[in-house]
């Protein structure tokens, strides 16, 4: 049991690291793809730069949400404030579980939002007047990242108050 309890902090930190890692990777992939598509459009029509830049940035938010969760988790654990409190093994696992929604949903939604945004950039290239609609399609995907973000925030702040 002692050994398990000594794993509390590492487990919690693993959760925070995953929350920063996976959505960050996903966003990097998504923004990378859309960046290639956007560069192609700007090569044809430089005046589209502002609009396609907006579309390129859309899959980037998951990485920021991940950072946010990691940050909240780190400060809850006391790693950021200095003087980390002893965390039991069970609590460490709870933190890990609380970070998972953001980590996994963030990763997959960033990649898929990137795909949707690439298609929207194509739409923008062919019909520049349809920007409002082109923006909505990728934004639909992001809903799920936002829901996961919400669950992770609520769970982490809830876990902090638990006495296990």
């Amino acid at each position, binding site marked *: 049991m002692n050994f398990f309890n000594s794993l509390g902090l590492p487990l919690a930190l693993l959760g925070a690291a995953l929350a920063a890692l996976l959505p960050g990777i996903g966003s990097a992939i998504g923004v990378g793809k859309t960046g290639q598509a956007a560069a192609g459009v700007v090569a044809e029509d430089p005046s589209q730069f502002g609009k396609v830049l907006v579309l390129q940035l859309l899959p980037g938010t998951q990485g*920021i949400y991940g950072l946010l969760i990691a940050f909240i988790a780190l400060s809850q654990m006391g790693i950021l404030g200095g003087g980390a409190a002893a965390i039991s093994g069970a609590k460490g696992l709870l933190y890990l579980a609380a970070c998972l929604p953001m980590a996994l949903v963030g990763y997959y939604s960033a990649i898929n939002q990137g795909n949707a945004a690439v298609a929207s950039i194509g739409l923008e290239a062919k019909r520049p007047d349809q920007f409002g609609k082109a923006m*909505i399609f990728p934004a639909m995907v992001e809903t799920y990242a936002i829901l996961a973000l919400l669950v992770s925030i609520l769970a982490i*702040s809830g876990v902090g108050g638990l006495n296990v």
Partner: protein
Amino acid sequence: MAVIQMKRVTLCALRKNRKQVLEDLQRRGVVEISDTDIKDGVFQKSDLSDSRAVFAKNVSAARRALEILNRVVPQNRSMLSALEGKKQLSARQYEEFAQRHDETVRAAERLEALDRSIAESRSEIVRTELEREALSPWMETDVPLDFAGTKTTAAFIGSLPGAMTREELSVRVAQAAPQAGPFTAEVVGAAQDQTCFFLLCEKKDREAYAAALNALGFARPAVQSDRPPKQQAGALQAAAEEHRKAIERGEAEIKSLADRRSDLELLADYDTIRSDKYEVIGRLAQSKRTFLLTGFVPAKKAAGLEAALTGKYDLAIDFSDPDEKEDVPVLLKNNAFTTPVEDVVESFSLPGKGEIDPTAIMAPFYYFLYGMMLGDAAYGIIMTLVTFLLMKKFPRMSPTMHKMLNMFFYCGISTTFWGVMFGSYFGDVVDVVGSTFFHTSVSLPALWFAPLNQPMRLLVFCLLVGVIHLFTGLGAGLYEAVHAGRYRDALYDVVFWYLLVGGLIIMLLSSSMIRSMFGLSFVIPSPVATGAGIVAALAAAGIILTGGRESKNPVKRIMKGLYALYNVTGYLSDMLSYSRLLALGLATGVIASVVNKMAAMAGGGAVGAIVFILIFIVGHTLNIAINMLGAYVHTNRLQYVEFFGKFYSGGGRKFNPFSASAHTQYYQFKEENES
């Protein structure tokens, strides 16, 4: 505050006044001109595509000429110059330009010709340089490279693979042609594993040596000349020098034409305006002495238009209400507070037939939701100030740009409000600066509460905002249905849903599980909850019975009704969608505090302060940009998907008046939009 009422206008005037009448209309820019479909013995249409092609050619020549000018004589333009908008053009300037028109076209053509000859000279210089490069191994040859021999001798000038001295070369050639007579060879240069040489033999041995050399891999020089290489290289250099001078002369002449820039801009616009006019002439029905024009005009402008035109010309003008079937263009008119979001509506779709203009009901929600998502007082103040100053500094910016900045101005005010409510000023910068540099714990308390401490409380508030937003959308649908006299639709499609969703919400709130989850303190008395349940059940039954009312078959009708009831899950997900208000609001605040925390890591003191300021500026600039974008995208989403989904489908066509500045790039008429 609505879709502007349009009148159909029919105008008949004398053909001799055609130019003036059309130019007058074009300058006013209040009439959208339709195709006049009369074709009979009297009225004809004219095809003016030839003249329009000439205008289009001039316009593109002027644009190309401007591009050349901008390349050779770059203008100092700041990043904000895009906001300046079009320059003002008076009618007199326009008339005067007619004198300079042809000369400006010539100037444009001259610029293009100069640019072409400069490009040619550049490629000539490259070509001469390549040729000189190719000549360089042959420099020692003092006969022309195409020298074939004298009366009695034959000469070979060329190269063989491999680096060789004169002796090696002679031995190899002699071995390759052992039967042939005497020869003399001389190595003149070397290039890339090649030996360049000059070989002289008797004329009778020419064939033999040619065969021998070919067998060894003989290659003639890549360049030929009828002068010795040295002279040739000198001539090439002189030619290149000549081309360089030509380029300088050309660029000087282009620079001397730089003062034509504004004339060229005017040319592009002048011929665009003329081309638009000719396009309209093509739509008119014309008889020998008269022409007939039809179109749409906003009802309010009709009287002014009639007065202005009948005062100047002999013409008959008539206004009528467009009939039901006509494709009437849509123009929105809203007050100063709501106009800025018109473009948000437009980029979804303009109101279709019988639909209300959603701008006015949408605008307050738009600012409200945006402010909640960004939710930082300092960011809000920055947004408000920057947009305000830009709008003041560039009064003539394009209407679209002005609307956008104005929208962010109001969003900024709302953001400031929510920032104060939530106690967020650059995140928690006051606390951080206080504890890092002054070792005191100060903080600006939230006027309402800090979201990070009570996320569930804010979530409940967000869902409440969502319910209000959705019910307002349903209410707009109700208004439309009642306004159009479709009372049954109003009852079946709106009232039933109000009762069902409202009843379900009250039932949910009465369950202790939901109350404890959300931390709600009030208790709903059980008779109210039971009543709400009964109402919801009745409404559900109503929806099952009426949801499929367009089907005659009773079984099919009930099935469709059940499917319509299933839509209640849609309301659930619509409401949960508003949780993004919480998530995005938290994101702004938390990232801001991450920035502050990183900035404070260098500690107090002078060095700490410098590091703090640097990280602070970079970090918060990034955070503002990313979260402004996020709030914009997700406010639009809530409006388009959740709100418009309840009552609005759009499909209207934009009012596209015949106007002088519709397609121009640089100028607009002064008196336009004043009539």
